[in-house]
């Protein structure tokens, strides 16, 4: 659904301070003839956790990549922490961070070496203490001196999360943060993200296929389908509109094109 100006205004009012952490306006990305992202607009309030939902090819990763400045939009505008991206990326990249299954940490380097390098890139002060703190928080202490390539999938995810938190970012972008984790570790990561948001008043935008995760973590859910915003509300609001009790059921309704019970 292409959004009109009235709808953009509605989204603005969700952020009463007027200083959105992320402000996306009429964003379009076309790869050759494919419209990966098709005229989407949304604002994300500071201190919130927002879930970006959608099936494969819905445009979640491309949207996040444009917010990060890794991909240039075909048209439209992205502002992050008040700065246009990618034009003023130098002003914001040190204040944000990300984790994605599309990138890895160097495998031959130890966890400590990797965190040291990224800590220096982000100009983290008292770096050794910060690494020790993260290692303790994320249960990495025992394998700090082990090469990243010799860790299990769960351990690697925790290292990637440690890298994403090394600079104590105001804005955290997460693409499938608990993919390939066992339920216990995944639950533990979610708890850590919740705590981080509360203690640092951070903004988190996460793309996920895990509906339980989104229900538990997110204040707001944006559902994408074929590059467009299909729905945008709190998890409870969306479930009520579709007359469903779980987001998984809503997801299936959206994926299979079943109409909403209420709303539109």
């Amino acid at each position, binding site marked *: 659904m292409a959004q009109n100006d009235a709808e953009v205004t509605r989204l603005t009012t969700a952020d009463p301070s007027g200083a959105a952490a992320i402000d996306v306006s009429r964003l379009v990305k076309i*790869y050759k003839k494919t419209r990966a992202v098709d005229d989407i607009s949304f604002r994300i309030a500071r201190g919130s956790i927002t879930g970006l939902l959608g099936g494969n090819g819905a445009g979640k990763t491309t949207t996040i990549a444009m917010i990060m400045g890794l991909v240039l939009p075909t048209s439209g505008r992205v502002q992050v922490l008040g700065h246009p991206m990618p034009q003023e990326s130098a002003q914001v990249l040190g204040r944000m961070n990300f984790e994605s299954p599309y990138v890895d940490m*160097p495998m031959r380097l130890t966890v400590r070496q990797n965190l040291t390098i990224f800590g220096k890139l982000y100009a983290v002060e008292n770096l050794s203490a910060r690494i020790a703190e993260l290692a303790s928080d994320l249960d990495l202490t025992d394998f700090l001196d082990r090469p990243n390539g010799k860790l299990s999938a769960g351990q690697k995810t925790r290292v990637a999360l440690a890298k994403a938190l090394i600079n104590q970012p105001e804005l955290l972008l997460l693409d499938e943060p608990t993919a390939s984790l066992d339920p216990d570790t995944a639950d533990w990561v979610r708890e850590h993200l919740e705590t981080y948001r509360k203690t640092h008043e951070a903004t988190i935008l996460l793309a996920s296929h895990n509906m339980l995760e989104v229900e538990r973590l997110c204040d707001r859910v944006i559902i994408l389908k074929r590059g467009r915003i299909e729905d945008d509300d709190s998890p409870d609001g969306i479930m009520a509109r579709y007359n469903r009790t779980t987001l998984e059921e809503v997801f299936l309704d959206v994926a299979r094109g079943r109409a909403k019970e209420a709303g539109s």
Partner: protein
Amino acid sequence: MSNLAMRRGLSAHRIGAMILRYWYLLLSSWPRLLELLYWPTLQVMTWGFLQTYVAQNASFFARAGGTLIGAVMLWDILLRGQLGFSISFLEEMWARNLGNLMMSPLRPIEFLISLMVMSLIRLAIGLVPMTILAIILFHFNVFSFGLPLIAFFCNLIFTSWSVGVFVSGLVLRNGLGAESIVWTLMFALMPLACVYYPVSVLPYWLQYVAWALPPTYVFEGMRALLIDHVFRADLMAAALLINAVLLMASFAAFLALLRSARRHGSLLGSGE
């Protein structure tokens, strides 16, 4: 969070972090270290023995002692300088780490500077044993060039960086499918740069192409030094001028290719 992260301009801290990253990588892998020594050693031995043989059978080469082995050593500065730059870049592609770097405060120019410093470090690791071997086996001391060696070295390393920056941009834009360019492009310069023979050997029209390449001036300058015992400062100045143009052009090309990679989404996958 430190205000340092938000500082604009070049950051020695970030450049240092990247050099540290490649240094850790080098130390973590003995095959990588061995590879740095292996090819230069093989090169200097093969060409050194060839020169010894030719010198025994041809009066010109006997008189112009060191032209072959000197050319090999200078060629290695050019080739290893570019490979040292490009391999460090490829390590990021192989490790799928480019997204992490591009999303960090590291600026493209800082990234390129760190790759240049690493090319010098890798070059030193390979060249020092090569130099010692040439002295021991063939009584050829590259330092006997004296101060002109600095001019030769600077011109060759500048060219190697220009090629390294450009091919890294190509790989960034086109993915690892373009990796073979990294290994082969410098060899395309070899016949035209007149590494082992004077420019006058080339057909007249091709000489114009040869003189457009900075290494041609260096190899001609080396032969002038070894055969005629004359340092051709004019050749070095011309090479420096062309190198300045090439370096600026390669930086512009890299930034254009980076922008194109961002437009096409190549930074997300960075695979084939």
